[in-house]
């Protein structure tokens, strides 16, 4: 068996790490969205969900550490590969046309960076409540109220929507790409993976966007 470090050092191995962590993060997004959509069931359901997570604290911590680990690895691999790729073409073309690559596939670093900055803001905002000290006054588990209040700010809502759209673009390429990197994208599976990738990225984005939309339209309120 190849040592983990030499596996990671190879470009293909690094891509595999990228793919596996990406897969994990997609899984997290699905779970996260499922939780968030409880907002439509009202404050009770949502806050109950948030509270009950705490009942499994050790498991929660394992998931949190795993999540942060995957995130860091995903980012570290992205940085490493980007550096490698920049070095691989020191002189740019005077003229370059793209024939079949999609914009989303060519802008993964950009979409990823915006999503990352959103995630950092998101943590500071809702988890640590640094950006909105007023949240400190709310009860520990009044997630519902925090959420609805936040989206009343047009800046927050705009940043959120932009990030989700870029996340969709990121996933649109990322989901298919991860199967390719894992060597699973072939034969009859190709169409299934392509459809699933497009479908999932759109569904996730639609799910996440439904919340500010609902708040904006007044379907959900305090």
């Amino acid at each position: 068996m190849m040592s983990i470090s030499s596996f990671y050092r190879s470009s293909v191995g690094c891509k595999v790490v990228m793919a596996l962590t990406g897969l994990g993060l997609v899984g997290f997004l699905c779970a996260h969205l499922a939780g968030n959509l409880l907002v439509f069931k009202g404050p009770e359901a949502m806050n109950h969900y948030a509270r009950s997570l705490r009942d499994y604290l050790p498991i929660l911590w394992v998931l949190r550490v795993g999540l942060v680990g995957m995130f860091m690895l995903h980012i570290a691999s992205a940085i490493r590969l980007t550096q490698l790729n920049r070095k691989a073409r020191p002189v740019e073309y005077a003229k370059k046309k793209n024939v079949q690559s999609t914009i989303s596939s060519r802008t993964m670093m950009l979409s990823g960076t915006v999503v990352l900055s959103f995630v950092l803001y998101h943590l500071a905002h809702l988890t640590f409540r640094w950006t909105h000290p007023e949240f400190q006054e709310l009860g520990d588990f009044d997630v519902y109220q925090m959420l609805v209040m936040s989206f009343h700010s047009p800046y927050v809502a705009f940043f959120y929507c932009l990030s989700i759209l870029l996340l969709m673009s990121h996933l649109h390429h990322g989901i298919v790409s991860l199967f390719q990197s894992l060597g699973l994208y072939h034969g009859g599976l190709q169409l299934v993976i392509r459809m699933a990738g497009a479908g999932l990225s759109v569904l996730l984005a639609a799910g996440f966007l439904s919340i500010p939309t609902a708040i904006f339209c007044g379907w959900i309120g305090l």
Partner: protein
Amino acid sequence: MKVRLHVWRQPSSNAPGKMVQYDAPNISPAMSFLEMLDLVNEGLVEKGEEPIAFDHDCREGICGTCSLMINGVAHGPSEATTTCQLHMRSFRDGEDIYIEPWRAQAFPVLRDLVTDRSSFDRIMQAGGFVSVNTGGVPDANAIPISKVDADSAMDAAACIGCGACVAACKNASAMLFVSAKVSHLALLPQGQVEGSMRAKAMVAQMDQEGFGACTNTKECEAVCPKEISVSSIARLNREFLKASVESR
């Protein structure tokens, strides 16, 4: 017809280069792109100027020597076509045509449009073979091979090693080339014996040569004159993964 060329001129590897403009009048639409360059060069020689250096040999689309980034597309605007089989009828009268060499760290420019692609050879030397000596091999029909596998192996083996995949890739990645070779041999029983070693060795050499990583944008597939599919990249990834976790 006439066209205006913007050509990368660089006297040697270390010297700086620049885009230079040339007018190419009296072009026939029946000319191949390289014949058009021949004509421009004849004119330059007559004027005592140095002609444009470019790689070419068989001029029938099979040797993989010709290269050229034409208007930002490797091998120019026609699908599944090498530069030598591209004809001037694919361009408009009076069109501006940008001609650049393949751009990659692993393909240094030797002069003008000529690059050094020996990195591809070194990848092959690292593992692109079946280790059999001449003589002492079994009868050719001793191992039946399904027609489907033989055909898929042939699809991958059609690669001419021109480097267009690297040139078109935003990361200058050589994955399509390497995967074509790995796939060709991985699909045949003769090649499977040392499949793991091959995948690891060729990927290691590819990285060492300074090619970028694959970000699955599939731009390579679009410009490949032999229409090698990116599914061979998936196969290489699979072979590499398999090789990495094997206990041997």
